[in-house]
């Protein structure tokens, strides 16, 4: 009967397992192919700045002389344009979403400098500026 369709559905679900996940306590099911956090490999990067030019939101900053690569996580839209453009495959999109960005910092990665200076610990959040 038409009137009891919803009753059927409500009763069916009352005795079956909920469709939702207890999210923060149980991890989300990872869907392959999902565009998540942008990961950077500083060992292969040549600091050519192609990703910076391609990024539609201007989230990436590159300094060729100081061998620095930086990303503003709040601006990144995980579109993957930089991944497609990178000639050295130093960039990739992981399926995880990473930890929430709570400050407007940029993540700065310092590459190996040829000079005998000590390399900075990476990743080290530095105030935006």
């Amino acid at each position, binding site marked *: 009967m*038409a009137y009891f369709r*919803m009753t059927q559905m409500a009763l069916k679900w009352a005795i079956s397992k909920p*469709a939702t996940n207890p999210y923060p306590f149980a991890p989300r099911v990872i869907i392959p*192919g999902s565009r998540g956090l942008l990961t950077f490999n500083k060992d292969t990067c040549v600091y050519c700045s192609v990703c910076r030019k391609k990024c539609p939101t201007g989230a990436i900053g590159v300094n060729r002389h100081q061998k620095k690569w930086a990303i503003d996580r709040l601006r990144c839209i*995980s579109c*993957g344009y930089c991944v497609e453009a990178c000639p050295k495959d130093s960039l990739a999109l992981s399926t995880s979403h990473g930890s929430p960005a709570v400050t407007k910092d940029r993540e700065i990665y310092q590459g190996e400098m040829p000079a005998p200076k000590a390399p900075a610990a990476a990743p080290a959040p530095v105030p935006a500026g």
Partner: protein
Amino acid sequence: MARTVIPFGPQHPVLPEPIMLDLVVEDEKVVEAIPKIGFVHRGLEKLVEKKDFHEFVFVAERVCGICSFIHGQTYCQAVEQIMGVAVPPRAHYLRTIWGELSRLHSHLLWLGLLADGFGFESLFMHSWRVREKVLNIIEATTGGRVIFGTCKVGGVRRDIDTAAMQSLLAQLAVIEKDMREIVDVFLEDNSVKRRLCGVGVLAKDDAYQLGCVGPMARASGLTQDMRQLGYAAFGELTFQPITRPEGDSFARCAVRCGELFQSVDLIRQAAARLPTGEIEVKVTGNPNGEFAARTEQPRGEVVYYVKANGTKNLQRFRVRTPTFANIPALVKLLPGCDLADVPILVLTIDPCISCTER
């Protein structure tokens, strides 16, 4: 009789987005309704002066958070038309499939909101439970959940391989079964019918005169569906626009319910005929010319007017979203209805205010 002015919005629990209606009510009868928008004007159209036309796809997609893919697609179509780019057929089919998936999730979202509007919480939850499955398909095939980011000028950025297509179709079968359950409740439940039937009747002529588009127009008996223009792969697929003669809220609900299954059918057709080959062509040079591309959003006809002058930035990018065209009808429908019907009437035009204001 004492008149009360009820400020309905811009922040109100039944409204998904910031539109404001000043409702003048006598007891519980609405005698006048004045809409106000402009709370979320972001000036996206002005952004063409800063972004080049390739990057602008991402901005176009962000015009709306729900029908985002079709926004990007329409923008690409307009630019491709101006530049004379021949998009590979496989890209056309993939765009069609993603467009219909986005219609599925948008309509399921709307059904949930409507159920919430007439105080049927569990139906709301169940609609969104099914929508979640559609979102999972979308995430698996495009990488995004509501912002697909797969459209680009000259084609698409991702392919769906055979295995992924098989799994998509398998999941679609499950979703179709779930949707059947929910749609049965919407169309046959006594209390739902009591709230929807005969509420906000819009005659066929009025709908045409007021410039209604999409399900709003089709529920009043107008056979108006921009997919009939044959953009993307729609020219090669068979479908009939779903119309209803009644023109009331129930008809608008029924049209959208029907379109759920129509979309499933279109995805299946497109998957069966999916041609092989390239998914994009290389686009060189800059556009010069103007074109008004029109596609069918879940909410109705969207118009993208693009004017370019041969530089990498466009000269003008103008969006006329379906909600904008449906607001006059809402203003006409509201006076005379009960206060309890206001959420239903507002929701049956499927308001998407952030895209209305760009």
